[in-house]
């Protein structure tokens, strides 16, 4: 079994403890997606506002493990103000990262690179991916 310190890096623990963009947005323009992980009972509510194909506002409310909470926190910070096209690229890159592939432009993922160790814990990959799954659902309707 790989070293746990490689999985649970300090930035991850910090983000889980002090999540960024925490909460649920309200308002007429807000889109809201709820996803969950049936094996562990975790739930995540992602809310955002999209205007002119750009994510102009986002918040996440995450009840889950360190990995999923940290992933939600880091993701929201990373994707805010991005265009929907950019978001889809990032989401695809993140999935590749978790699946253990080498990434060409890994700097684009910024802090989300700390999840590179999760692939070695296959039972936990769902946790890291859950917020991104919600994000893809959130932006999907608004892309042609």
């Amino acid at each position: 079994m790989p070293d746990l310190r490689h999985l649970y890096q300090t930035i991850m623990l910090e983000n889980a403890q002090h999540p960024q963009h925490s909460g649920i947005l309200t308002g007429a323009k807000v889109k809201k997606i709820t996803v969950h992980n049936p094996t562990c009972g975790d739930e995540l509510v992602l809310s955002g506002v999209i205007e002119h194909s750009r994510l102009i506002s986002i918040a996440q409310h995450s009840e889950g493990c360190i990995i999923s909470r940290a992933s939600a926190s880091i993701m929201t910070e990373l994707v805010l103000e991005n265009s929907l096209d950019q978001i889809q690229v990032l989401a695809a890159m993140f999935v590749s990262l978790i699946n253990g592939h080498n990434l060409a432009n890994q700097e684009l993922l910024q802090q989300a690179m700390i999840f590179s160790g999760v692939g070695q814990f296959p039972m936990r990959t769902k946790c890291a991916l859950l917020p991104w799954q919600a994000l893809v659902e959130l932006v999907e309707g608004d892309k042609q």
Partner: protein
Amino acid sequence: MNAYREDFPFFKAHPDIVYFDNAATTQKPATVIQALIDYYSNDNASVHRSTYTLAQQATDQYEQVRTKVANFIGARDANQILFTKGTTEGLNWIAQGVCRHFLQPGDEIVLSVMEHHSNLVVWQQLANTLDLKLRYIKLTDQQTLDLADAQQKITTKTKVLAITGVSNVLGSSNPICKLSKLIHAVNGLLIVDGAQMVPTMPVDVSQLQIDCLAFSGHKLFGPTGIGVLYATPALLDVLPPAEFGGEMIDQVSLTTTSFQPAPYKFEAGTQNVAGVIGLGAAIDYIQTIGMDKIHAEEQMLGQYLAEQLSNITNVSIYGPADRDSGIVAFNVDQLHAHDVATFLDSNQICVRAGTHCAQPLVNMLEVNATLRASLAFYNSFEECDQLVTAIKAAKEFFSYA
């Protein structure tokens, strides 16, 4: 170390693993594995259908296990034993059969809030389709079944009480004898989910007057893909088969079919013969120890573990204070069950984290998930201590953030 461990090839292959996921599935003694090898290497032939000597011997072996299972659970007649894929299939067959053939719209089915999805979802789906009413027996503050509430919920409208013998989360056993009296007083059926009960304590269906009992081989130190459904002759006679195919048939024309009597009418197609043989070997094995002994060992282990865990600060334990099995669900405050489970895994300790296929119960405990250590008689106090040490280390590890 526990001497029984020697009987299990899995523990030879993994001398350092602490296997605490026995409520999910148990390890298999060498005799069970050997029975499978012997069956496939020497005796494999078509059961019931062919007339040559080998086929007869396979049929005899198969039917002898039916008798063995009947004796094991105190059934009067081997023909009351049906072989299924597992608890889930057995409960589905009986729920479908009973709801579709005995119940009328408005009739009530009583369950408990601690049911496993296998004894909940099928009733829920049927209740919606057939306009039946589900009522759930609550828990007491001590997280035991609330018998006063049971008395309230079981009325003359109640046609079925379907309840687990032992909760796969709380680890507690339900008072089947008392419940049997309650439900039979209103002429209802008592259906018991024996998935966790049969592997941990002696069960006598005749004495407890259980109308149906379902359990799984793989949780009883036997092979995967085999289970048992016990039912009274009154039910078996009138219930239609759940599946149709070879072997269950009496006569078929292009337009009509007549069926064999039970148990055969329920066993459509080629059965899991090796699974049955392996289940027989599992019952032989546990009877060399004795279910009383197994129950005493597992109770003691469960009690010890619960006490040791409760001595750790910020650990919450679920279920009643007096343990009746080796199942202990718990949580570490501030830590998510999955993170702790990953930490324990890195220490070679296998426990389960999640909702344990009992989402309503876990929600009622007001958590998203719990950890669950489930011990079998082959586990030991030393292993409990290892878990306790590892939990303390996990607290340290994660607080270090």
